[in-house]
């Protein structure tokens, strides 16, 4: 289903409320006037995997009781190694779910449980590593039948060309990757995931462009790092939104998985509830958007923290406490009808300091999303949304842009408009030249899958 209108205006979009709110898991409601903490964690390598997950789950549920956190979501992101052992995966999901059920019953907690499957494919292998693809689908099945409430993935179709292009600030390559190659892979993948989730009556959550927008953000670094332009990272984010939207077009319902900070676009376009991560995910990566991203979240997350001993407890429980207070503040605002006041502070906090934050501001998101739903196909919307973003950046005089950023923006405008004049021809021609030059790039396998 293609989305053709927007569900919110910049005025009415706000944290805790989504038009298509959800009820799932153990009495959990998401997006119906409550922001819920979503805690993510990973085991220490040197430890027994099952024991680590048991320890993490127990400490989290205990801490929730100790703090009076009534609603929460746990997310287990399976690692590459865990993916190798199906029996282990089934056992660990079972274990976590049964612990969740026990605590929820004893203490009246409302809990959701998301399982994220790793994209283990080697895109350099024939047919895009069909064996791994099948394994991923089996793990989705396993997760569904052993207790997951929400399925997610951070899929990586197109990333081989993206990696090549991003460090060369090569916009043709970036467009070809996100607006073309990735779209084929997303459609195939999400048809499958949605059907698995529907079979088991659980939720198909969404697919964050971690390998794209998050990678660009990490490379761009701090305000003065000069690795790649922040304005480049910000149009990658916009283009990533176009790519991640495909999961919802294929039937995902959310709550969306966030890692690439593109979910505010998906919320405006789909009306589905979204997870976001911001300041508290400093434990996993620094960002320049720590407050603004909270303005529209339905679940509020910490990215991932290792199960490491800190003075105040282990990593996961410490970050659950931080998320608890963040969400409590937002929920208190909702309770008093002051959500818009708090939201506006969050937006103002970051918006003009950096282009990456700028493109997350609801008014800007709205303008760009209008362009996204107005275009006829994935490729054109990818290019057109980036052009719109560039235009809005250059028109905002108060936006903090260095000379280098301005130089890039000028260049990007020319380049993107050139591509927009005949997108598929430009991309198809460019792809011919990338083959052979870009390691592991197998264009045909995208088209045939």
């Amino acid at each position, binding site marked *: 289903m293609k989305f053709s209108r927007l569900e919110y205006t910049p005025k009415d979009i706000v944290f805790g409320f989504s038009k298509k709110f959800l009820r799932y898991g153990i009495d959990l409601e998401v997006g119906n006037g409550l922001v819920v903490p979503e805690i993510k964690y990973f085991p220490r*390598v040197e430890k027994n995997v099952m024991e680590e997950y048991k320890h993490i789950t127990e400490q989290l549920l205990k801490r929730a009781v100790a703090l009076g956190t009534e609603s929460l979501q746990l997310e287990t992101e399976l690692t590459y190694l865990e993916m190798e052992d199906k029996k282990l995966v089934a056992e660990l999901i079972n274990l976590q779910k049964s612990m969740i059920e026990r605590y929820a019953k004893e203490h009246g907690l409302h809990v959701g449980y998301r399982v994220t499957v790793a994209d283990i494919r*080697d895109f350099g292998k024939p047919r895009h590593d069909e064996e791994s693809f099948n394994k991923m689908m089996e793990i989705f099945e396993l997760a569904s039948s052993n207790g997951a409430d929400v399925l997610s993935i951070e899929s990586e179709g197109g990333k081989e060309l993206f990696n090549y292009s991003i460090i060369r600030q090569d916009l043709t390559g970036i467009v070809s990757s996100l607006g073309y190659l990735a779209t084929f892979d997303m459609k195939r993948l999400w048809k499958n995931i949605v059907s698995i989730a529907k079979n088991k009556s659980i939720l198909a959550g969404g697919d964050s462009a971690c390998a794209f927008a998050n990678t660009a953000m990490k*490379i761009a670094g701090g305000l003065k790092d000069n*690795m*790649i332009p922040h304005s480049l990272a910000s149009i990658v984010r916009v283009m990533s939104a176009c790519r991640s939207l495909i999961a919802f077009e294929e039937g995902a319902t959310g709550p969306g998985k966030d890692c690439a900070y593109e979910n505010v676009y998906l919320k405006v376009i789909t009306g589905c509830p979204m997870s976001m991560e911001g300041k508290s995910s400093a434990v996993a990566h620094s960002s320049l958007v720590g407050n603004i991203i909270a303005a529209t979240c339905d679940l509020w997350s910490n990215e991932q923290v290792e199960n490491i001993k800190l003075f105040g407890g282990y990593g996961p429980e410490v970050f659950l406490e931080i998320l608890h207070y963040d969400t409590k503040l937002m929920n208190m605002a909702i309770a008093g009808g002051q959500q818009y006041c708090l939201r506006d502070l969050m937006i103002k906090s970051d918006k003009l300091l950096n282009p990456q934050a700028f493109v997350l501001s609801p008014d800007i998101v709205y303008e760009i999303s209008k362009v996204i739903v107005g275009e006829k196909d994935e490729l054109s919307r990818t290019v057109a949304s980036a052009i719109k973003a560039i235009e809005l950046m250059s028109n905002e005089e108060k936006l903090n842009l260095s000379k280098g950023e301005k130089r890039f923006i000028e260049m990007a405008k020319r380049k993107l408009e050139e591509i927009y004049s005949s997108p598929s021809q430009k991309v198809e021609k460019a792809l011919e030249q990338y083959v052979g030059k870009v390691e592991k790039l197998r264009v045909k396998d995208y088209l045939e899958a």
Partner: protein
Amino acid sequence: MSKEELLDAIRDSIVNLDFDKSKEYTLKALEAGATPQEIILKSIAQGMEIVGKKFEESEYFLSELIVAGEIGKEITKILEPYLKGAEMKKVGKVVIGTVRGDLHDIGKNIVAMMLEAAEFKVIDLGADVPPEKFVEAVKNENPDIVGMSALLTVTMVEMKNVIDALKEAGLREKVKVIIGGAAVTEDYAKSIGADGYGANAVEGVRVCKQWVKQK
């Protein structure tokens, strides 16, 4: 335009990151009697130096440094037929790869490109590289340096396996080993017996430069 003017124009178009112009001027300069050596020394090397300086002074982005390096490489390719076997001297040779189990190669790629821009010969083994492949490459390529990258804590342990494999093959003493990547720390580097560690790409390249200077 005189030969000298054309050499300057090549240099400037590299600085402006304009491949088409730099190619055009290169062909013209050759016609006007410039030798490939002149173009390499006066245009490419100077252009790269200016770009490098602009990067150091935060005027240019790292990505622009990389683009300039790519343009330089492309022009060198145009010059190849004229060079008649007189290859450009490299400052050192690096075998580089992301270790087994780890598919994250963007950090490794950045380092590889920066090494090339710093005139290293780089043998890039790609991502998910098993220890045997590192050993083989050291045997065949006889590099000065082996660079390994890992983003994940779970795959970081592979770095030790590579060093052990090099020891077993009697090759450990022939190369310097540097490691990097989000999960890696200086302590970890020491603990597995690596010779160096790069907290980021810029630092990693700096360490490599120092090593070949000491030779």
